[in-house]
């Protein structure tokens, strides 16, 4: 599979022109990565999508183009429409959580994967690319992948798991072993509890588990808790993060709130303080509350 990451529009238009001249068989899929909530099209995302699709496609049977506007186009050099169903299913699975990928497929695909099957469709695709290229002049750069430390694709899959989880998932990040165990005990049974004693592990757990609620210590040995707060809320605007600290510094509280923390607990941790935020989460997001004490 050829992956074209630069000047995708120009190369794609040339390819379509050639196909039309030769009258060769062709199918196109527009993958609307630009519409996803948490993952944008980048060369890295394209590489990984290509790895997934290689299972279905011989090396010379397809090209994948990255458009500056943020979408990708998969061009198949055959007209095996049966293969399309599997390919689209796999692409949608990669970004499973996003509602866009959940839409039922029609003859021309869905809003996430738009299909171009016939010669006339290819003319439409050509026009579309011209339009996108014109529009892309106003875009400075491709939207970045997730902030450093979180793999956007894996996170999309974790968001799907979050939706499927039967209990509220809570991540506790605290480097002091006693404090960590205390918070876990206070939270009690009835939840899926994840723990981390440093920032790097916390980000890894967030990426793979997408917990519903996070209790996050500010003073961690490797990454500042505020940095983790910023990283997580950038990729997951629905994140529910409560900061934990031993200090009463006013500027810390203000900073946490400005960066979308849902709350702030000053030690000592008590059942009342911890439960208050679990209840707040349940009230604010009744749809995500599931079970849990």
């Amino acid at each position, binding site marked *: 599979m050829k992956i074209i990451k630069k000047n995708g529009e120009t190369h794609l238009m040339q390819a379509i022109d050639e196909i039309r001249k030769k009258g060769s068989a062709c199918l196109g899929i527009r993958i609307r990565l630009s519409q996803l909530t948490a993952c944008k099209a980048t060369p890295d995302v394209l590489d990984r999508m290509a790895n997934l699709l290689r299972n279905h496609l011989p090396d010379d049977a397809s090209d994948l183009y990255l458009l500056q506007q943020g979408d990708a186009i998969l061009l198949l050099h055959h007209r095996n429409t049966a293969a399309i169903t599997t390919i689209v299913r796999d692409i949608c699975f990669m970004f499973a959580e996003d509602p866009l990928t959940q839409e039922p497929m029609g003859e021309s695909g869905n809003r996430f994967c738009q299909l171009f099957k016939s010669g006339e469709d290819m003319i439409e695709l050509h026009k579309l690319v011209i339009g996108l290229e014109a529009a892309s002049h106003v875009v400075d750069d491709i939207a970045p992948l997730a902030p450093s430390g979180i793999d956007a694709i894996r996170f999309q899959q974790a968001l799907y798991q979050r939706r499927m989880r039967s209990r509220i998932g809570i991540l506790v990040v605290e480097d*002091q*072993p*006693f*404090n960590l165990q205390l918070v876990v005990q206070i939270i009690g049974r009835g939840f899926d509890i994840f723990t981390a004693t440093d920032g790097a592990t916390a980000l890894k757990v967030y990426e793979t588990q997408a917990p519903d609620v996070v209790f996050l210590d500010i003073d961690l040995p490797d990454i500042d808790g505020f940095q983790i707060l910023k990283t997580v809320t950038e990729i997951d605007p629905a994140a529910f993060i409560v900061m934990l600290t*031993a200090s009463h510094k006013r500027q810390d509280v203000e900073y946490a709130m400005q960066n979308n923390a849902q709350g702030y607990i000053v030690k*000592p941790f008590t059942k009342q303080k911890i439960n208050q935020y679990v209840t707040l989460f349940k009230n604010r997001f009744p749809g995500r509350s599931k079970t849990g004490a």
Partner: protein
Amino acid sequence: MNAPFDINELRANIGDEPEIERMLLTSFMESCSASLDWLQTEFPITQNDSYDLTWKNHMHQIKGAALNIGAFGLQEATKHAEDHYQAALAVRKMLLSEVITQFDVLQHFIRENSLA
């Protein structure tokens, strides 16, 4: 003598769960003990930036843990030590000694009362 911490503070949070209580207090003593052992063993001969920062982190951690079980003597001593993490070594030797004393009192109380 007043008790060096109030077990009821902990019980109010975790309920009447003797096993969990024992596990938590053991964890508390082990983690504080490991920090204090390190601070004593690695105590430098000359001023050392890296040790100063580690000192600050360990004192901060013990302070947080002490606060969580209502061990205010230990919390006070570690707060003082954390605030003075760049003080002269002779001063810090005294601060460390005070923290260890507070911790020993607490440890003794916990063992004496078979709490862990």
